[in-house]
Structures are given as C-alpha cells and as structure tokens.
C-alpha cells in the first residue's frame, strides 16, 4: 500500500516533468513565421540549384543568368527587409543625414521581460544556417569559375558573393554590436551552452514512456 502510493508519487512527479519538457521543447521548436522561413531558404537555395543545373535545364546562357540575378535580388530584399526582422529581430540600413554624411545603422530588438516576443530556437537556427552556408557556397563557386576559366559565369558568381556576403556582414554586425563585444559574446554563448547541457536532459526523463523505468528500479520490492 505504502509502496503503491510512493510509486504513484514518483509517477506523478515524472509526468509533471515530462509535461514541462514538452512545453519547453514546443516553445523552442515552434516556427512562428513559416512563410518567412520558407522564403528565406527558398530564394537562396534555388539560386544555387539553378546555377548548378543551368546546363541541363536550358541551353540559353542568358535565361539562366537573368533567372539567377532575379533570384539573388529577391533573396537580398527578402532577407534584409523581412526575414531578419521577423525571425531574429535584427535589422540594418544606411542613413544619410541632412548634412549629407551617410552612416550605417545596426539594430537588435530588445528581449522583452515576459519572453513572449523572443524568437524561437528553430527559426534562429534556420536563419543563421541559411545566412552562413550560402555565401560560402558562392565563394566556392567563384574559385571554381576562376580556375576552370569559365569567365562568363564570373559576373553572376561575383554578384552572388557580394549580395549574400553583404547580408551576412550586416546581420553579424547587428548581432555582435561592435568589435570589442565579440569576445564577451563568445564567452556568454559558450557559458550558456555549457549550462544548457548540464541542466536539460541529464536529470529529467524527456518522454513519458521511460518514466516507469526509474520507478521500477527504485522500488525493488514490487
């Protein structure tokens, strides 16, 4: 009897923890702006795909080039104006003062206290993944075009590198702030990663079907 009660208690505790984990996981992995996430990746990836498959798709160099240019410019506009703002809360632009001097402004959205407006982890991961890998792929294409002497593609590839590199640089400046914040940001990030590893899945059982395991082992009499 006493054993039953205690096993019920342990079951209740484990279920409660599983509930908490599920809600935490859903908040982190929920994608709040599916359309923006889709378009963030769609334009970049399709520009790369068209560049790779252009010889197979159509024999006209000009159609390929115009398509890639259109996709690259749509991607630049979408990432700079829409997806950065929605997915990670960062934006950057150029401002010209009244006396004619121009300067670049980089802004990051403040994290509000109740956390309802914070961006989800999944969106942030999608955003940065797309933002970082595509310019690197275009740089690889640039070197391959240069060394295989396919010079006519160099204009398109250079345009790809410049546009996507500009977005990458702008958002990194937004995120980092100024140069001397980089080391403090890196240590903060590493510290947070370490804490997350320690506190999250090590002690709590993540799903409900494994919660019976420890209760069975804790009560060897039953």
């Amino acid at each position, binding site marked *: 009897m006493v054993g039953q009660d205690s096993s019920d208690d342990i079951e209740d505790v484990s279920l409660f923890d599983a509930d908490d984990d599920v809600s935490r996981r859903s908040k982190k992995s929920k994608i709040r702006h599916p359309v923006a996430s889709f378009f963030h990746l769609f334009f970049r990836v399709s520009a790369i795909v068209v560049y790779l498959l252009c010889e197979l798709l159509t024999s006209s*160099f*000009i159609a390929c080039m*115009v398509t890639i240019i259109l996709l690259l410019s749509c991607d630049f*506009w979408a990432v700079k104006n829409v997806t950065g703002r929605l997915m990670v809360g960062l934006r950057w632009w*150029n401002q*010209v003062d009244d006396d*004619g001097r*121009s300067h670049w402004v980089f802004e990051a959205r403040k994290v509000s206290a109740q956390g309802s407006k914070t961006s989800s982890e999944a969106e942030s991961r999608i955003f940065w993944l797309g933002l970082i890998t595509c310019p690197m792929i275009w740089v690889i294409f640039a070197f391959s075009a240069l060394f295989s002497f396919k010079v*006519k593609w160099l*204009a398109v590839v250079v345009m790809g590198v410049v546009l996507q590199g500009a977005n990458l640089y702008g958002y990194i400046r937004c995120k980092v702030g100024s140069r001397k914040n980089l080391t403090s940001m890196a240590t903060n990030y590493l510290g947070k990663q370490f804490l997350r590893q320690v506190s999250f899945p090590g002690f709590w059982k993540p799903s409900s079907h494994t919660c019976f395991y420890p209760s069975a082992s804790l009560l060897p009499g039953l």
Partner: protein
Amino acid sequence: MRDLKAVGKKFVHVMYPKKSSALLRDWDLWGPLVLCVSLALMLQGGSADSKDDGGPQFAEVFVIIWFGAVVITLNSKLLGGTISFFQSLCVLGYCVLPLTVAMLVCRLVLLAGSGTVSFIIRLIVVVAMFGWSTLASTAFLADSQPPNRKALVVYPIFLFYFVISWMILTFTPQ
C-alpha cells in the same frame, strides 16, 4: 509597396532633373539593376559570333556598366567629393534611363529597316539621350565637388555614357 514607389519616384526625377534630395538621400540600387538587365537583354544578339547565343555580350554589358560606375565613383571620391559611394552609384545607374529609352527606340526603328535614314534617326535619338543622361547626372553629382574640380569629375561621366551610347548606336541585329 514602399520600395517600388521610391524607385518610380526616382525615375521621374531623372527625366526632369531638378536638384532634388530623393535621388541623393534615399539611394537604392534596384533601379540601376533593372535598367542594366533590360539594357543588356536588348543589346544581346547583335554581333558577328552568334554561336554563343549572345552570352558574352550580356555579361560584358553588365560588367561595363557596373565596373564603369564603380570607377567613376572612386574617382570622384579620390578627388575629394562629399557624396557617398552608394549615392554616386545610385545616381549614375538611374541616369542610364534615357539611354535605355534610346535603345528601345533604336530597336523599334531597326525593325522598320536598316538603311541610311534609320541610321540618321538613331544617331539623333542616341545623341539626344546621351546629352540628357550626362546633363542629368552632372546636375546631381557635380555639386558635391569644389568648383575647380568639376571638369575632372564630369569627364569620366561623359566617357562612361559615351561608351554606352556607342554600344547602342553600333548595335545591328542578326
């Protein structure tokens, strides 16, 4: 949308070049991109080796326009101009609009025939649009320079639009 309206307003400012801050203050490079692509599309397929289906010419026009604009901007900045890099690129790109109109007119005239009369018409149109382009861009750009350096800034702009006009005038379709 906001960006499209801004681009349209700049096109209007180029056609009637008064000293306005719209072109200079809120620069954007969408208009130059559209103009460059349409000019390059209209100029392709116009020379002897058609086996490459006009590929190199498209990239050539693109590179000439953008590289030329960058060089002029660097030149004006090295001469001590007060205008920023992207503002200058914006003005130079938008002032290609009259030449794009000239290209359109030339293509229509060439559809009708390619004799001496059509050449004279094309010459007049191209020279007029070239003058308009150069005057529009110098109206925006030359004010940012000290007065004894104005000619040094105007000359590369003149050369840039001259090269583009030459490409337009010597275009003969296959």
